[in-house]
C-alpha cells in the first residue's frame, strides 16, 4: 500500500502537477491564438512575443511596487501589477491593429498575407521587448514559494516521496479557471460575445444584421491581449522570464490550438493539456514509479524513458503533423488550416 502511495505521489510531483500548470499556461496562450484565427482569420505568429511584452510590462511594474514596499503578502506582487500589464498589452495590440492590420483588412488581403505581416510584427515586438528589458533572464516572483513543500509533505505523510506544490502552480490553475469561465460566459451570454461568434461564423451575414466589424475586431484584440499578458506572466512567474523562451513557446501553443481545432476555444483548452501531458509523459523516466508498482522480479533496470528531455519540442511538433495529416480540422471541430 505504501508503495502504491509512493508511486502516486512521485507521479503527481513530477508529472501530474507540473503538467497541470504547464497545460493551463499553454491553454491560455492557445485561446488567444484560436480567437484571432476564428474571428480575424489568420494565424498570429506575434502571439508569443505579445506574451513576452505583457510579461515585460508586468515585471517593470512589479519592480516598481516592490521598490515602493507594496506587496501582496503571501501572494506574488506580480498579481497586483498584472492589471496594469494587461492595460499596456491591450494598448500595444490596439496600436498594432490600427497601424498595421487595419490597412490589410481594408484591402481584404488574403490570410497568408496576414500571416506574413504577423511575422513582421513578431520581429518588431521581439526587438521592443529586448530593447526594454534586455535578452537576459529576469526573476520577479516573491511571496511564499510553496503551498506544500516536499520536505514538509514527507514529514507529514511519512512517505519516501515528497510532494511539492508551488504557489505559482496553484495561482496558474486558479487564474486559468477564472479566465476561461469569464471568457465562455462572455462569448455565450453577452450581446458583444454573441456578435463576435456571429462574425466568426459568417462575416457577411453578421455585417448584414448590423454588427459593427471594427468593434468586434477591437473587442477581440482586447480579449486576446489580456489572455496573452496573463499567460505570459503566469509562465514567467512559474518558470522564469526570458524573451527568447516566449518565441520558442509559439510551437507548443500553435500545436495546442491546431490539435483542438483552430477557432474552437474549447478545443484550445483541451489541446493545451494534451500537448503539455504528451510532452511530459513521453520524456519522463518511468523507472521510479514502476519500481514502486511492479513486483520485485519485474522491476525495470533501465530508465524507461521513451525520449530524452532534449526532444520535448519534437513531441508537440510530431502531434501537430499527425493531426494536420489525419484530422486537419482538429479533434474538436474547428476550421481547417
Amino acid at each position: 500500500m505504501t508503495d502504491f502511495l509512493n508511486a502516486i505521489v512521485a507521479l503527481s510531483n513530477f508529472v501530474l502537477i507540473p503538467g497541470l500548470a504547464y497545460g493551463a499556461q499553454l491553454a491560455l496562450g492557445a485561446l488567444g491564438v484560436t480567437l484571432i484565427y476564428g474571428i480575424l482569420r489568420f494565424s498570429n505568429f506575434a502571439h508569443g512575443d505579445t506574451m513576452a511584452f505583457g510579461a515585460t510590462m508586468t515585471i517593470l511594474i512589479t519592480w516598481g511596487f516592490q521598490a515602493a514596499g507594496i506587496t501582496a503578502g503571501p501572494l506574488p506582487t506580480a498579481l497586483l501589477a498584472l492589471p496594469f500589464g494587461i492595460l499596456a498589452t491591450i494598448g500595444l495590440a490596439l496600436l498594432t491593429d490600427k497601424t498595421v492590420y487595419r490597412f490589410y483588412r481594408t484591402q481584404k488581403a488574403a490570410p497568408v498575407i496576414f500571416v506574413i505581416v504577423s511575422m513582421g510584427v513578431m520581429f518588431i515586438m521581439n526587438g521592443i521587448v529586448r530593447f526594454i528589458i534586455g535578452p537576459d533572464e529576469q526573476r520577479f516572483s516573491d511571496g511564499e514559494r510553496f503551498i506544500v513543500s516536499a520536505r514538509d509533505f514527507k514529514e507529514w505523510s511519512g512517505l519516501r516521496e515528497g510532494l511539492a506544490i508551488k504557489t505559482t502552480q496553484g495561482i496558474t490553475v486558479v487564474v486559468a479557471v477564472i479566465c476561461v469561465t469569464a471568457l465562455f460566459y462572455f462569448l455565450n451570454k453577452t450581446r458583444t460575445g454573441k456578435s463576435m461568434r456571429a462574425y466568426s461564423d459568417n462575416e457577411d451575414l453578421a455585417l448584414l444584421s448590423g454588427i459593427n466589424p471594427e468593434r468586434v475586431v477591437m473587442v477581440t484584440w482586447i480579449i486576446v491581449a489580456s489572455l496573452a499578458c496573463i499567460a505570459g506572466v503566469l509562465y514567467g512567474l512559474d518558470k522564469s522570464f526570458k524573451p527568447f523562451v516566449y518565441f520558442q513557446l509559439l510551437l507548443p501553443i500553435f500545436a495546442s490550438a491546431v490539435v483542438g481545432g483552430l477557432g474552437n476555444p474549447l478545443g484550445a483548452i483541451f489541446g493545451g493539456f494534451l500537448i503539455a501531458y504528451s510532452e511530459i509523459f513521453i520524456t519522463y523516466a518511468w523507472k521510479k514509479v514502476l519500481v514502486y508498482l511492479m513486483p520485485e522480479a519485474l522491476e525495470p533496470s533501465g530508465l524507461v524513458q521513451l525520449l530524452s528531455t532534449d526532444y520535448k519540442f519534437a513531441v508537440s511538433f510530431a502531434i501537430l503533423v499527425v493531426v494536420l495529416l489525419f484530422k486537419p480540422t482538429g479533434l474538436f471541430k474547428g476550421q481547417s488550416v
Partner: protein
Amino acid sequence: MKKLLMATALTAVASTPALADGHSEIKLGVILGFTGPIESLTPSMADGAELAMKEVTDSGLLLGGASVMPVRADSTCVDAAAATAAAERLITADGVKGIMGADCSGVTGAILANAALANGIVMISPSATSPGLSDAEDNGLFFRTAPSDARQGVVMTEVLLEEGINEVALTYTNNDYGKGLADAFQTAYEAAGGTVTISAAHEDGKADYSAEVGALASAGGERLVVAGYVDQGGSGVVRAALDSGAFDTFHFPDGMISAKLAENFGDEIEGSTGQHPGTDSPGVAMFGEMVGDAFDSTSPFTPESYDAAALMMLAMQAAGSAEPADYKATVMDVANAPGVKIFPGQLAAGLALLEKGIDIDYVGATSVELIGPGESAGNYRQIVIEGGEITTAKYR
C-alpha cells in the same frame, strides 16, 4: 671567392661554441589568442611568461649566459588554420626553440599536430584543459601546466567517495566542456566502484528544467552532480531539483562555483560539495609580490604561463642544450620531486643548482607537478556549503 666562402663557413663553425658561451640568444614562441574570445586574458598571460624569460636572461646563468627572447604570435583561440600558420612562422622564420602555448584546447591540438610535431618543437600550454589532449600523439613534445578536466573527474570521484557517496545522478551542459567533464567523471567514478544512475544533458537558456529533473529524480542517486554553468542552466536545474524535492545536496565542478551560487541558493544547498582549480601554495603569493603592479598576476592562467616558460628554460639547463629533442626529456625531471624546491623569483638559484648537477623540483606559482602524459596533476580547492556560504574544506 671560394676561399672567402670557405673561410666564412669555417668561422661560422668555429664561432658556434663561442656564442653559446656568452652572446647567444634563444628564441621562445609565445602563442596565445591575442584576438578572439579570450583576448582579455591573454595579455597578462604573455606578460607572465615573458617575466620568467626576463628573470632568466637577467641571471645570465642559462647555458652559460644565453639570453632568452620572446616572440609573440596570435593563436586566435578558435581558428585552427590561422593558429597553425602563426606557429609555422614562429618555427621556420623566427627559429624558436620552444613554444609557450597555445591557450584554447582546439587550437592547441591543431598546432601540436600540424606544426610542433612535424618540426619537433616542445610546447607547454598554460591553459588547455580538454581531456582529449592527454591522448594526442605528441612524441613527448607536449606538456601543460593546466590540469586536464580528466583530472578534475578523478578529484570529483575522490571527494564523493570520501564523503561516502556511492551513487549519483549526473547532468551536464550540452557543450564540449560539459560533455568532456561528465565523461571523464563517469569513467573515473565507475572505475572506482561508484554508480552513475543517469548522465543527462541539459540545454542552457531554458525557462524550465522540471522535465530534466523529473528524469534525474526517477533515476535516483544520493547526490546530483551538476557539470554546468552557474549563470546558465546549471542553476536552473538546481532550482527545479530543490523545488520538487528531488535532491537536497549537490556536487559542483568549477563551472558552478562562484559567489552567485551562494547568492542564488544559500542554505538551501547546505552540505553540498564541489571543487575548482586552486592552491594554497606559497608560490602564488610570491608570484604576486614579484609582479607587483606591472600586470594582473591573479588573472586566470597567468601564474600557469609563468610556470610554463620557466619549466621550459629549466629543462634546457638540465639537458645542457636548447634543442627541443634534447630538453623534452628533462621537463618532467625538473618539474617533479625529488630535488630542491624552486619558487617564483628563484629561477637563478634553480639554474645554478642544475649547472652543478643538483636535482631541482620546480614548484613555481601553481605547485607544478606533471603526471602521466606531461600535464599538471592539478591542485583543487575542495569546497563545502556551510551556513549558506562557500567554505574551503581542503586543498588536494
